[in-house]
């Protein structure tokens, strides 16, 4: 078989990070090629370079034997036949399926859109893919899985020769996954090549022909899937030294801080949420419970339900052995001593245009009032100063808008906001996402200090190394269930990874 795509010696550096270092990738005509690696291995950067969203510092890309200009834009790449389907879809929700497939390239007659041709062409492609989707339906009315299929149908309109799929099954139900796999095989049969990024290793063995593994921005190995066991693949993906990061804490057993039983939820058609099934969990005061899982496994959904930000269909909660109602609002959760640091710092955490003082003190203003009415500026300044020192926040004035701070400092301000509420249970969702290495280590230290002060912590992270470094215990989520709990001391990357990707049976 001949190569459809060849990337040689791709290198890319960002300030302070070498994201890719001499990476090679060869994808044959009509094959499904798995691109494997942990979070931070460099997969996303490589995809962005292939799709034209970023330019490499060095290396060359050949499509069908011909060299591609590395400075091409994403649009030029699409026209050349490389189409990327991202995790966050690029569909316009309020317009029809057919228009989305041909947006910017609608068939025109006498200067007006030729609707009948548009719908006929769109219906033709949908039927090739065997999809029962009405081309006239608004994209908003489709399920997440159907939207994904529309993205693929749109790729077909470009006569794509290579389709890049970035974790396409992360948000799909198992029936939708079957449909996706059928379509991927259909495309392969038509000679289309597919780069398939997934963390679900069972998909690799059932769907993919060959694989390439990246680790720490480097090419590690490639080969035929049928010649390698899943354990082989995991061994190739992991292999960094965890012990360097581990700071074992000596923690005497303590009282139960939180216990939940039978937490279930049904998000209905809400996009990008997972239905939880019967989650049972307990955390002790002073304990750090890490939650591992793939995207869409339900960790964030669980955290938000525990905090009252989303609703659940069933579940019982005990705090310090007192049975209480599952919180119906964040205000109620905070009242009970449960606090959440949300996953998306800028979207759900910060008031970007407002001052550090306002951001940090907001939920604790009661503590700062005189005669229970007027917020004292003096007390607010002291409050901010106390946490600035304790958390090592770099800032010039407490009136600076939080948006002017670096990611790490923003996160510390939000952490201070949580800590000031004196929580009994603190949930941190991706506490170090998007912050630099130095700040990361500081946040880890703060997490340990907080636990030492007797707070029960639940930490969600997509970086396994981080979880292994800080957790006393690790709970593994998979498809809306808590499938296993492992001891933080003895857990290995390989063990947790295989639980995440394959469930308790593995």
């Amino acid at each position: 078989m001949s190569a459809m795509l060849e990337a040689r010696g791709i290198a890319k550096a960002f300030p302070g990070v070498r994201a890719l270092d001499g990476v090679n990738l060869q994808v044959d005509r009509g094959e499904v090629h798995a691109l494997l690696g942990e979070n931070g291995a460099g997969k996303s950067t490589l995809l962005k370079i292939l799709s034209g969203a970023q330019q490499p510092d060095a290396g060359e890309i050949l499509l069908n034997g011909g060299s591609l200009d590395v400075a091409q834009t994403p649009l030029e790449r699409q026209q050349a036949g490389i189409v990327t389907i991202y995790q966050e879809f690029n569909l316009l929700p309020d317009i029809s399926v057919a228009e989305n497939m041909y947006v910017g390239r609608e068939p025109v007659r006498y200067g007006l859109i030729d609707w009948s041709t548009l719908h006929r062409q769109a219906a033709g492609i949908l039927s090739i893919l065997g999809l029962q989707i009405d081309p006239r339906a608004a994209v908003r009315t489709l399920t997440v899985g159907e939207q994904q299929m529309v993205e693929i149908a749109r790729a077909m309109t470009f006569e794509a020769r290579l389709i890049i799929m970035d974790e396409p099954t992360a948000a799909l139900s198992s029936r939708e996954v079957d449909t996706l796999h059928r379509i991927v095989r259909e495309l392969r049969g038509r000679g289309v090549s597919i780069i398939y990024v997934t963390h679900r290793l069972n998909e690799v063995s059932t769907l993919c022909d060959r694989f390439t593994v990246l680790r720490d921005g480097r090419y590690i190995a490639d080969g035929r899937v049928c010649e390698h066991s899943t354990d082989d693949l995991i061994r190739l993906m992991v292999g960094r030294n965890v012990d360097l990061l581990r700071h074992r804490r000596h923690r005497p057993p303590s009282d139960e801080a939180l216990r939940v039983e039978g937490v279930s939820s049904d998000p209905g058609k809400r996009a990008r949420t997972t239905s939880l099934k019967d989650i049972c969990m307990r955390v002790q005061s002073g304990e750090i419970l890490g939650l591992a899982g793939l995207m869409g496994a339900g960790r964030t959904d669980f955290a938000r339900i525990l905090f009252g930000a989303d609703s659940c269909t069933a579940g019982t909660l005990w705090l310090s052995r007192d049975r209480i109602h599952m919180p119906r609002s964040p205000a109620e959760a905070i009242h009970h001593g449960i606090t959440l640091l949300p996953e998306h710092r800028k979207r759900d955490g910060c008031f970007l245009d407002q001052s550090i003082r306002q951001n940090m003190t907001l939920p604790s203003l009661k503590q700062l009032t005189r005669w229970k009415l007027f917020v004292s500026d003096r007390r607010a300044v002291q409050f901010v100063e106390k946490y600035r020192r304790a958390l090592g926040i770099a800032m010039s004035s407490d009136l600076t808008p939080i948006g002017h701070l670096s990611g790490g400092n923003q996160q510390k301000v939000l952490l201070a906001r949580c800590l000031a509420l004196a929580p009994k249970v603190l949930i941190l969702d991706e506490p170090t996402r998007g912050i630099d290495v130095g700040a990361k280590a500081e946040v880890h230290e703060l997490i340990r200090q907080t636990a030492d002060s007797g707070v029960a912590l639940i930490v969600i992270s997509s970086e396994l190394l981080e979880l292994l470094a800080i957790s006393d215990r690790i709970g593994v989520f998979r498809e809306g269930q808590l499938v296993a709990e492992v001891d933080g001391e003895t857990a290995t990357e390989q063990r947790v990874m295989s639980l995440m990707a394959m469930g308790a049976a593995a």
Partner: protein
Amino acid sequence: MEALTNAVKPRRSASALVQRYGTGLVLLLLAIVFTSQNSRFLSFRNLGYILTDVSICGIVAVGMTFVIISAGVDLAVGSALGFAAMGAAWVIKLSGFNLHPAWFFALVTAVGLGAMAGYAHGKITTVLKVPPFITTLGGLSAWRGATLLINHGGPIHDLDTGYRWWGNGSVLGIPVPVMIFSIVASVGWVIQRYTRYGRHIYAVGGNVEAARLSGLNVKALTSSVYVIVGTLAGLAGFLLSARLGSAEATAGTGYELRVIASVVIGGASLSGGTGGVGGTIVGALLIGVLSNGLVMMGVNSYYQEIVIGLIIVLAVALDSFAKRRG
């Protein structure tokens, strides 16, 4: 623990100064220009006139500041003002002008009706999840219709002297409406600056999801600002009818534009989270000074409307320019 890098120092650049004090400077400049054209502009009598004129709109604008900071808008203030004023006068008329003191019953009725209108807007916005623009656009029409209905479109005259004192009297040489405006503005400023409630309104307008996740009762906070602006529209309606000596069915028509303009010229963003009563007062004064000054210069009133329109756009353009530079 080592401090991290990347802290940004606040810069005192020219554009930052423009952003902060620009509207005040424009106000000062206008006052100088008008005084040079007509020395009577700066007379005690004229200033009193300008301030009284500004006060009635200004009272509503203080409430509107809360609404706009919360990322909402209220287009119905003019109609709610007219409705409250007419309702109050109607109560007096219904009693055969026998309620004493008449102004007291009128004040309570006007404020109560205004608050009720605001409560309706708030509930419709938060419970039925209708965007405030639409809710209050409906209110703009509905309350005006209700006002016309009360007295079949006619005015209610013959408000007694005690009533009219509220619009035309003075205390220590300061016109009563100006006095009330000062009190309302001061209380509004203190609430925004120094109470939890005020800080919470900024949070809701800055990022509603982050506010909810910080444990704020976003729905109650959102509803409350419409009650505030409605109450103040009721108060302003009472003062306007006292000033005119009659309740007119068309009173308050077009006030929404002038009130929103005051708040926006004062530096608030319609996307919420920024602004303040201080800026709003300057904005209201700017519009008041401009229309008064243009009249004194003998400018055709049609041109006035054009100039005020241009000033609104210019003020916001200047602000967004300064923000980009700063």
